């Protein structure tokens, strides 16, 4: 991870922007999973496998999202605080 100390404000802005949408990303498979769980779209053993696979990918999605979020946070933390203008 390389941080240019002149970008701390940019990093903080990025963190805010990502913070607004990271929740949507982590929940991206919630609605499809809910449809599968309702049994109103597709049922049967193939549907069960499909639903299980979706559950697994939801975990992967959340892990990836947490990692991205964590890396931005780390980058912000590593950036030196900017001096107030003289």
């Amino acid at each position, binding site marked *: *991870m*390389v*941080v*240019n100390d002149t*970008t701390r404000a*940019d*990093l903080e802005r*990025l963190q805010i*922007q*990502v913070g607004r*949408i990271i929740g*949507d*990303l982590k929940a*991206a*498979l919630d*609605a*499809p999973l809910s*449809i*599968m769980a*309702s049994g*109103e*779209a*597709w*049922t*049967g*053993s*193939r*549907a069960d496998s*499909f639903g299980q*696979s*979706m559950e697994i*990918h939801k975990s*992967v*999605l959340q*892990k*990836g*999202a*947490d*990692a*991205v*979020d*964590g*890396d*931005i946070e780390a*980058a912000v933390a590593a950036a030196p605080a900017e001096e107030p203008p003289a």
Partner: protein
Amino acid sequence: MTFSSVSVTGLEDLVAKLQIALREIDDFIGFTTERSVRADMNRLDVTSAGFQDLEIVYEWVDSALQETQRRLGLARAMQRQHPNAPMVRIEENEVTDLDPALAERQGRDLAIRFEQAGGVDGDFAALMQEFEALAYDPDAMAGFYAELGPEMAARFAAALGMPESGVGENAQRYLELMSIGLGSALMDATPPDGLGAFQNEFGEATDDPKVAWGRLALLQYGDFSGSRAFAERTVNGTALDAFVAGGHEPGNIAAQSLTSDRTSVGLPSDIAALAFRTLSRDPELSRLVFQTHDMEQLVDQVDLTGMSPPDRHDVPEMFGLAIEAGVGADGDPPRTEHSPEENLLAFQFISAVGRHKELPPTLGNSLARIGAAYVDEIVAGSYIDGGERPGRREPSMTGAPPDFPADAGLSPSFYLSPDVVYRFMAGFQDTLETAKPFDDAMGRLMDEQLDAAMQADWATNPPGTRTQDLLRLFGATASLNFEARRRHAADWDATERGIRQAFTDFYTGGAGLIPTNAALHVPYWLFQLIGGKLLGNWVDDVHTEEGVVAENIEAKHMQWYLIAERLVRNGVGAEALASLPPELRTEDGLLRPMEEIFGDTALADEFYDWVNAQSGYPANPLNEGVDAGQQAWNDGAMEAQDWVAYLEPEPEN
């Protein structure tokens, strides 16, 4: 074998949600967009291993989306076969597992082998076996028809229709499959290259009868409810545009046939007839197509076509079925409540038919069913204003004629004219059987409306006049109908014998004005006979063994009794009923049946006296009610009789 249950709406929802999920992940990883969280991070020299996980999920969702879209396409095709099922069952196999592009490829490969076969000779059964496995697969069928092209598709269909097609009894099944396959192809949500051109060319004018017939044959079995614009262009471009311009002329494409023999698939060989048959399958398509033409021109052509040569009798018959579909004359009995679109088409059709003095006999069955479905409008259209002369009034969708009795209780959706009603009814008087749906509908309408009118009238003091208004309208309709029947029946003597027998059965059976399902039409027939027909002569002629005394009874006596009996049943004269002599009563205290009262002269006289408050009987409200009712009927009937005499003078002997 593994089966799944799927729902079209559920899968549509799932597809929509997966598309949203894919976009949300893409906003981070930037697979298809320039702006992304990853791009923003890269600009700030920040990286994350988390994106590898997001890429894995993106690829999975992308693949899941394709699988779901394909399953949705298959589910849509299956649900057309089971339209009312909330979920349909599909077998999980290599077909459902196919990538849409691979399914399309499979369809194209099959089409190439059709082209190589060049016709239905040889081992066509093997090709059709493969086709059957793909017929409900929109991706595969879209590929098949895009590759095969419109002309070859039509020629294969035409080859199957030929009497000696070479595929024997499978011809119809194969044609059905090809038609179902075309319907599936048009359901494809992502049409492949060539399918758009296929659709355009399919509706272009052609002078090749085999191509024209084949195109229309391919519309006979599949589901085209999602592609009506395509079906409309095909029917019009192939046949009906030409038909309207001169469908009775020998050189016209719509006047051609696939073969001079019968087709091997049970479809009409006549191209115009097959075009109309297409419309008879789909009410919405029927209305869509008919609204693109002038109905008067269409009926003119059907008339010319149906009169000669005789082997084109399919054209009026199929035209009638197409109109029946469009105007909502479905059901048994035909439905009498209609949508505005159905009403409009019915108005246009009946008005156009009403301009013709003679109509093709094979149109008759449909005319009677349409008349039954629009029986309120037929009765309302029979109204004749005092002093009005034939030929002046035009039918109207909105405006009632002057002095129309709005309180008669009818609720017509449009107003015809007596000229139109008479000529329309003349179109289905070939035999009593042909006219039966309409006669039954009239019996039913009289039954419902008279009860309602009598109850409404005698709820007030003095009684209202709705019953009289109604009876006058019924009298006019019945008279127009009787004259149409007398003048236009194929064999009036046979018709008369049929009516006479029905009266005998009716009279000896002792029915009142209570239509049963088997005799709904009889009271209506009876009420047509106001022109002085001596019913006794008729009944005597058939020498009934029931000993019915009918020597002196006339139709008007029976009518009089039937009105009286119905008034009694609706509570009119309830107080007077207390003074009814015991010999005129049943054990239940009601009036004895007609044949018993009129079978004995003394009883008939006594009944007359009781109703008319003669010979010491007290005042009876039935007296005025029956007289006024019968007078109203007679007025309507006589006006209509005069109208027909003026409209269609009979040659002097």
